[in-house]
Structure formats: C-alpha cells, structure tokens
C-alpha cells in the first residue's frame, strides 16, 4: 500500500490492460468476478427488459386512442399493463442504477479493487436473469392479469393466469437485489481506501448505501409475502383469503411495507447520480454535503413508515390514515432538502450545458412535479377522489421516469467515457435529452388532467366520457416522441463504441477517484490503492480558468 497519493495514474506502457481486454471469450464474461464486467452484463440485460417494457407501454397508449379501445380485448389489456408494470419496476427501475452504475463505480469511488464479494455479485446477475426469464415465460405462455401489485384474493384464489410463475420470477429477482444490497453495505463499511472517511464519500456512495439498507430490510418482506400468495394459490394454505379465514388487507400492508420503500430504492440512486453530475458541470462544491448525505438516510428510514398512504380506501381505520398521511408529508422534507441543495449548487456556478447536465436539469424539473403531486395524494381528502385514477399514474411516472430514468441517463452519459473509453457526439446527446423532456411532458401532463377529471387507471375504454379522447391522443403523441428520444441515445451510444473519439481518463475535468484511473479502467482498478487527502467535489472554477482547463463552449 502506498503512502503518497498518486495524483494521476495515467496510461503508461507498463500499465495493466483494461478490463474490456482482460479476456475475449464469452466464458471470460459469463464467469467473471469483475464488478465492471458484471455492470456491463447488467447494462445489457436491463436494456433488453426496458425494450420489452416499452413495447407493452406502446400497446397501452395505442389502445387508449379511441374511447372504445382500438385492438385489445379486456383480458389482453389487463395482461399488457401488468406486463408493463412488472417488467419496468422489478426488472428495470429497481436494478438499473444500483446494478449498472453502482456496480461499476462504487468500488472505484471508494478506492477498492472490487466489491467485497465478487462471486455473490455474479450470482446476483444470474438470479436477475433467471427471475426475468421466469416472468417473460409467464407472459409468453398466456400472461398475468393481476397488475404489478398482485392484490389478493384475486391473485391467490381467482385469477386463471400465470400468477405463480410470475411471482417466482419476482421472488428470484428479489434475492438478486438482496445480494447486491449486502455486497454494497459490506463494501462501504470495510473496503474504503485509507483516508476515505465517511464524510469524504461521494454522495453517490451515500445514496447507494441508503438504497442497500432499504433493500436489505424491505425486499425479504415482499419475498415472504409473495411466497404466501403462492402457497395460498397452490396448497390452499390460506393467510390472505377470507374464504380460508385470512384477511386480504394484511397482504396490502405487507406488500406496501416493501413497495413504498421500493420507490426509494428506485429514486435514491438516481439522486446520488445527480450530485456527481451537478458538481462537475457547475464546477462547484456541492451545497450542504452533510444534509444531502443524511437526508438519504432519513428517506430510507421514514420511507418505511408511510406505506399506509396506498391504503386510504382499503378499510384501514381513519386514524391510521391520518398518521400515515402526516408521515407521508414528513418524507417530502428530505426530498425537498436535496432539491434545494441542488438548486443552490447551480446558483452562481460556472455551468457547462453538456448532455449529462441537461438530464440533471430534466430530473430536477420533473422530480419536483412528481414529488409535489405525491403530496396531493398523501392528503386523505384529495386521495379519495384521485386514487385509482390517471392522476396516480401521472404522479408515479413523473417520479419514476422523470426521476429514475433521467438520473440513469444522466449517469450513463456522464460515465460512458469511463465505461468504454469512448466519447459520444454531444450534440446528439443534447438533442435527445430535449426530445425526451418534451415527449415526457406531453405524455404525462395530460394524464394529470385526465385523472383529475375522473379517468380510472387500468381501464382500456372510456366510452362513458368521450371528451377524454383529446387528452388521451395528446398523451399517445407524447409517447411516440418519447420513444424516438429513447432510440437516439441507443444508436449514438452504440455507434460511439466503434467510431467515437478516445475519451481519455478525465474528459469532463471531474473530481473523484474514478477519474484518476485510465478509461476503461484496468481489471484491478488501481495500480496502487490511493490515499485520499481531499474532500469530495473539490472543484475550483477559478483554478480551472487559470489553468485554461475550460473548454471553449463554457458559459459563465
């Protein structure tokens, strides 16, 4: 272990080969223990699932163009929105940022050679793929129609679709995220480089850590819950079905005990990404480091106390509802703290409007809308009107697409040169960020209106209210634009792998250990474990200027 901090470990003739070149056989990928390779495997897998989920989404949007539906039967429509929800939530949103960006970056950011348990990491990928295949098989052979929430007793006693196989898929995928969570927690506790104190951790690490805590505490609960549903379905061991003596509301309590925190599993890593990108493109230290770090933990903790806001109309008592409503308001506080800190970071920063930063701006705008409409829903009196309408649909798409996917794309564009050593065309990046932002708003703003007017979610017709058609057509038009917006990055990112110019170790002039090593990094990340002597985000715009490290297009 060295005692001096290597300022920059650039490429030199004797530097080890990059992780991409450390073996070319398929086997060297499928049996790898390298966190970077596993991240790439995850990137491929989640992209495939995102594609499938998007196909289902397009079918939903096409169906809703006409008040009487366009092409799908009732049953088929139920299966399509269920497929969309399950694929997007369990197989895209939950693993996307932790398992791709987190896997690749977390060990490097804290100055480690790998995660604590490389084999467990690989196992988690296989579990994820196995779970995903189960779910896809279930959908291919007849589908599931319960919705992603699997509410009992419909799922356990009545539905004649492939509920069991789908649940098995979700169950297995749950263990994949548990494996990742355990790995991250141990890695952050035990693998930090000398000098990497807790308060020198990049905020992305704090975000991933808080996420892992939620995963470890929440996922097992949904696992046992889904297992009980299967037992009830298969062996008539009744716990939830009133016919067998059980109580279906217990299912909802157990399910939302996980699934509300699960929304923070999706958003906290995205928030982590935002911190890294925003500091780099404003050339500023983050505003309120400690507040952001602790607000992640606060969200992780409080997130476990608000599940009842999904159950205001479930027969839970009014007093329970009041408590859950109040606590839901509290959880907005740490989210707001983060948002204020980000705006304060941008304020008077030397902003560079490059692709990753555009996604950050998109994130902030959309997340604010999504979070604030969450408060409408957390108020019992408004929720009674809005629950099970498109207002809820719009709310969660603003936080999940506007938050998680924007965060994912910001991170992907920020670290793409680190992943592969290649640069993508920035102008195409900016264009697609803009298209996604416009398309997204056109898709989901009308859904707030629809929900407010009373359009129920999960219906495939609205002949009782033909005046809704205008808003539905707007939404479908927006979805088409959104699809184009997602396709463009897929094309130019793949293009860049072959034709992109070399990125060099640090194309953005960013701080952080990952930028001190070559791109793509060597298998063991560091030649020598670095010693950290600096706070994170030690940006200094004036020094940049003095040393003329600022590219020409920089705006002040």
């Amino acid at each position: 272990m060295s005692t001096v901090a290597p300022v920059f470990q650039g490429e030199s003739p004797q530097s080890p080969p990059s992780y991409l070149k450390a073996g070319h056989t398929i086997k060297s990928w499928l049996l790898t223990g390298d966190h970077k390779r596993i991240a790439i495997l995850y990137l491929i897998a989640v992209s495939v699932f995102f594609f499938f989920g998007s196909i289902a989404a397009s079918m939903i949007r096409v169906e809703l163009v006409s008040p009487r539906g366009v092409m799908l039967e009732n049953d088929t429509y139920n299966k399509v929105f269920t497929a969309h929800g399950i694929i997007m939530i369990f197989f895209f949103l939950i693993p996307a940022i932790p398992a791709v960006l987190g896997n690749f970056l977390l060990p490097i950011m804290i100055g480690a050679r790998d995660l604590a348990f490389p084999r467990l990491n690989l196992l988690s990928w296989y579990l994820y793929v196995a779970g995903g295949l189960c779910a896809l098989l279930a959908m291919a052979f007849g589908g599931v129609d319960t919705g992603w929430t699997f509410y009992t007793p419909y799922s356990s006693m009545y539905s004649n679709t492939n509920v069991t196989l789908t649940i098995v898929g979700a169950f297995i995928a749950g263990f994949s995220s548990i494996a990742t969570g355990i790995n991250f927690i141990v890695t952050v506790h035990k693998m930090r480089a000398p000098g990497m104190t807790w308060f020198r951790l990049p905020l992305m690490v704090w975000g991933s850590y808080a996420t892992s805590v939620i995963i470890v505490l929440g996922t097992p609960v949904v696992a046992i819950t889904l297992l009980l549903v299967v037992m009830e379905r298969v062996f008539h061991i009744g716990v939830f079905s009133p016919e067998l003596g059980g109580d279906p509301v217990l299912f909802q309590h157990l399910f939302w005990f996980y699934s509300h925190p699960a929304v923070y599993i999706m958003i906290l890593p995205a928030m982590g990404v935002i911190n890294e990108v925003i500091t780099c493109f404003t050339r500023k230290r983050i505003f309120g480091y400690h507040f952001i770090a602790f607000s992640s933990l606060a969200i992780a903790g409080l997130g476990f106390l608000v599940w009842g806001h999904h159950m205001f109309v479930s027969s839970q008592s009014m007093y329970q509802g009041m408590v859950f409503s109040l606590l839901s308001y509290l959880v907005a506080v740490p989210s707001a703290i983060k948002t204020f800190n980000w705006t304060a970071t941008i304020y008077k920063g030397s902003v560079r409007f490059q692709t990753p930063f555009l996604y950050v701006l998109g994130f902030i705008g959309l997340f604010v809308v999504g979070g604030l409409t969450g408060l409408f829903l957390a108020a019992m009196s408004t929720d009674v009107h809005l629950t099970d309408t498109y207002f809820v649909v719009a709310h969660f798409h603003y936080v999940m697409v506007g938050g998680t996917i924007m965060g994912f794309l910001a991170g992907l564009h920020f670290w793409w040169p680190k992943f592969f050593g290649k640069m993508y065309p920035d102008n195409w990046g900016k264009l697609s960020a803009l298209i996604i932002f416009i398309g997204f708003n056109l898709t989901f703003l009308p859904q707030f209106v629809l929900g407010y007017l009373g359009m129920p979610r999960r219906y495939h017709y609205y002949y009782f209210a033909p005046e809704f058609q205008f808003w539905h057509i707007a939404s479908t038009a927006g979805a088409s634009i959104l699809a184009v917006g997602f396709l463009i990055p897929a094309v130019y990112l793949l293009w860049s792998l072959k034709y992109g110019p070399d990125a060099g170790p640090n194309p953005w002039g960013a701080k952080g250990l990952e930028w001190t090593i070559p791109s793509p990094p060597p298998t063991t990340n560091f030649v020598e474990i670095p010693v950290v002597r600096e706070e994170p985000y030690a940006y200094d715009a004036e020094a940049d200027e003095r040393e003329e490290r600022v590219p020409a297009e920089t705006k002040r």
Partner: protein
Amino acid sequence: MSMKTEALQAAHGAEEQPLHHQFEELPQQNESYVVGMWVFLVTEIMFFGGMFLAYVLYRWRYSEAWFEAHTKLDIPLGTTNTVVLLTSSLTMALAVHFAQLRNKRLQLAMLGATIGLACVFLVIKAFEWSAKFQHGLVPGPNFTWEGLVPAPQAQLFYSLYFGMTGLHALHVIIGIVVIGVLALLTALDHPLVKNDFIPTELVGLYWHFVDIVGIFLFPLFYLIPK
C-alpha cells in the same frame, strides 16, 4: 495430517491464511465476511418477520380458536425437538472453536454431530406432521375440524403452523447441506476453507439463527396460554 507435519507447523508457526484478491489485508477480509453474514441474517429476520406479523394479527383476532387449535399439538415431541436443536447449537459452537484451533479432526466430528442432530430434528418433525395428516389437520380441502370454534379460524392456525415450521424446516435442510459441504471441503483440504476458520464461523452464525427461530416457534405454537 501426520504427526510430523503437525510438529513442523507448530515449530514454524501456523500456515498463512489465504488472502483473496479484492482485499488488502486479512482482518479486513475476515471482518467483511462476518459483517456480510450478519447483514444476511438481518434479511432473514425480515423474511420470517412477515409471517410473525401474520401470526400476531390472527392470534390476537382469533385467540379463542387458536387456543383450541393448539391443544392438538404434541408438546412432548415439540419439547424434545427444542432440546435437540439447542444441543446442535452447542456442537456447532464447538466446531467453530476447533476450527479456530485448527484441530481438523474434532472440527469434523462436531460438524458431523450437528448434522446428526439436525436429522433427528427433521425425523421428529416428520412424525409430528404425518400425525396431523392422519387427523385431517392439514389446511386445504380436506381440513376437518370438530370443535366449538369456527373451522376457518382453526385452519388459519394450522396454515401458519405449517407455513412457519415448514419454512424453518427448509432452513434446517439448507443448513444440513451447507454444513455437509463445509465438512467435505474441510476433509479434502480444499483451498476455499484450508487454514481459514471464517467459513466455519459463518456457517455457525447461520445455524444459530436457525436455532433461534426454532426457539421462538416452540412457545408461540405449542404453549399458547388460555
């Protein structure tokens, strides 16, 4: 290991414990595995926790029926099994102790004893369960209940009884497999476990957790007060 090599080792100090590539030093490696195991056990607690919650809810709601239903359980067999389980915890703890001392022979003996006790536990459990089948106390279409309290409420007791003891038994079976693999690798001096007591310690932690769950299940199902 022959007397000679043993003596040689004693003279030169013990052989080095292997260091895995992702770690910088041995204490870091050992602590990482132990912390990881504890975090895993936290997930296990949450996993069982969902069922314990269901138990609390229904026992509180149908306390009378549950008291009636529980009288059909076999307390002597349940008690015996608890003792068997506790003893297996002792043998497991001894296995860890001998692994630390690098006394392979006694370590293997203790691992074997643990497996043996775990099998005894499963056999007794199997007797208990098959008796329930004969008496029609297994939830499902064939559930028969003649008593004053409503059948669905009694059935719920047996649903959770089979659900929770079944899940526990599954953990015992997994434990037997894991301990078996560990014993095999140790006997073969496999590099994964050679000169390294941490694998034994991890398996031990898991086994103690399985025991603790068993110790909670016994009073919750067998000893319900009126």
